[in-house]
């Protein structure tokens, strides 16, 4: 499976987490692909931390330089949506008014600790709004490929990369599996696309239990 396929698989599975009536914030990377897989009857409000609630799709023509998503790409506003300043935007996030935040991850540990902002010496993107989203979202879902390109695990006992926020992730979705983060640690909930349990065991550093339906 190439990386592109994996991203599509992850995004398609993540879309099932999004239900009508929810307010959803999507991070860049894989999460930005999630809307492509939403069923048409799913009526959600997308929040973007640069100041939109009710964000609509990319405009077909005539992009407005003053109307973008948090990644700087042109978007539209749906009927009933509104604009606001950055402080109000993060007030929504910290106060838990965003129901689901779907973020890309570099590593997640067994207790739901998230690392997604820096690979020291390699990439210095900066943390952006990820710390607040991790802190405030009622439900935080982390999306990532199951391993590094060289096969090293990303679901860790303890994150080796600098932490974004501790004990915040509720669910991890990869191209191979879905894990819930519970008080007792990770629980494997689903195997995706014909992946075997053995395969998941081999490429997952963190210990995990099995959901009843997988036993």
């Amino acid at each position, binding site marked *: 499976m190439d990386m592109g396929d994996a991203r599509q698989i992850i995004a398609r599975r993540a879309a099932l987490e999004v239900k009508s009536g929810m307010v959803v914030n999507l991070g860049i990377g894989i999460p930005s692909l999630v809307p492509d897989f939403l069923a048409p009857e799913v009526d959600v409000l997308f929040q973007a931390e640069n100041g939109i609630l009710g964000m609509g799709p990319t405009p077909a023509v005539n*992009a407005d330089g003053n109307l973008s998503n948090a990644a700087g790409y*042109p978007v539209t506003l749906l009927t009933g949506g509104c604009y606001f300043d950055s402080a109000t935007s*993060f007030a929504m996030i*910290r106060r838990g008014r965003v129901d689901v935040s779907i973020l890309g991850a570099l590593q997640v540990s067994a207790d739901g600790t998230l690392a997604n902002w820096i690979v020291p010496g390699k990439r210095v993107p*900066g943390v*952006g*709004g*990820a710390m607040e989203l991790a802190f405030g979202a009622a439900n935080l879902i982390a999306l990532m490929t199951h391993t590094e390109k060289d096969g090293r695990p990303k679901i860790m006992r303890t994150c080796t990369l600098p932490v974004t926020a501790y004990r915040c992730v509720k669910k991890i979705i990869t191209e191979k599996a879905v894990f819930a983060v519970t008080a007792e640690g990770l629980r494997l909930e689903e195997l995706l696309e014909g992946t075997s349990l053995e395969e998941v065991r081999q490429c997952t550093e963190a210990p995990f239990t099995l959901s009843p339906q997988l036993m």
Partner: protein
Amino acid sequence: MTNKVTTYDHVASLLFDGMTLLFGGFGGVGTPPGLVDTLIQSNVRDVHLVGNDAGFPWVGMGKFIVLGRAKSLVASHIGSNPVAGELMTAGKLQVEFCPQGILVERIRSGGVGLNGFLTEIGKGTHLQYDKPLVTIGDKQFLYEAPITGDIAFVYARKADTFGNLVFDKTARNTNPFVAMAGKVTIVEADEIVEPGALDPEEVVVPGIFVTHIVPSSGYNWKWIWEMPDKLSRDERPSK
């Protein structure tokens, strides 16, 4: 009411080496293009910048940062401006990362005349830096210091000549708080109108916070979506 409309030449005369400069904008959206160009042309250096991000190398404050005349930058991310990362790695730009929503609240805290606030966000992470820990009751919080600037650069959709401001869509972002936090606040507005021309209910920033106003010629850069081949995904603004 005082008429605060002035020229870019006058603005240039207000800038100085070593100043702390706050700027509005998010990935360049809402960063005042004419004021950035004025800064670039001014030869002012050792500037301490505070803003949401480092823009792109050719967009927003990024155009100035790549020149190496900023001494420090407080921002939530610099991933969309690889040159900023290179300057940082080379020890030529001191970068302090601050969570995005915390950064705008620090600017607001300075802008509204308070003395900083407490939060749990960032506690125990690299971004704690040497911020004081404050114990209240049985909980420990990070103290986040207020930020003010010698100069604040603001972009508005419309200003009246007194400085009452309204903004445009997602170009609002941090601008209202940057406007309050400047000792000298300079606004670049798409449209400048007479007092009374703005609906008093729709004014977002009252003119009392504004020192000078200049007319904008509109943004003078190409956005990333206008040059799709230029950037890999990793160079786009990230959060």
